[in-house]
């Protein structure tokens, strides 16, 4: 019982983290494109 609630708790924490960091890859995409654009100048 407690093991399954622990598992559930970990899943919730992971979901929280994923939703919190969801737009960070967009910043990475931005920086890659910026790097390419600046490199081409």
């Amino acid at each position, binding site marked *: 019982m407690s093991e399954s609630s622990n598992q559930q708790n970990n899943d919730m924490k992971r979901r*929280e983290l994923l939703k919190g960091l969801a*737009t960070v890859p967009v910043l990475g995409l931005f920086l890659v494109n*910026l790097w390419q654009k600046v490199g081409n100048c």
Partner: protein
Amino acid sequence: MRQLDSSIMANRCQLYGLVTLRVLIGWHFLYEGISKIINPYWSSAAYLLDSKWIFSGLAKTIVSNPNLLGISDFVNMWALTLVGASLLLGLFSRYSALVGMGFVILYFLFAPPFLGLEYSRPGEGSYIIVNKNLIEACALWVLYAFPTGHVIGLDRLLTKSESN
């Protein structure tokens, strides 16, 4: 912190639409800011000199004073960059939407596309009263009224750590 209506939280299409709008405007602001920072020759002088309507006098005062022009350039570059990063990452996004809206309204008021006002700088499109600045300001108002950073964004991690 103001929360979203539960109906929007439950409706994925509305929620993701708002998040997408926030990220796209953040991207736009961030690039506008960084492109000015990395260009050593950029200055707001040309834009200000072409200003018309109620702020044209203020614009000419700023351009004629090197200190004021330096402050104007610095504030523009870094505010656009920080507001952009904030909106993109969803960190303090409600406040940055408000600050960003203020900036875009200022850009609009310094060079409004009103009848009878002619600009020497060629515009990117054809406008009468409504231009893209005004539309972006309204979009930021929507993002201020419907904040999403605490749902998808770093604000979510902040609010969780505050509540723990």
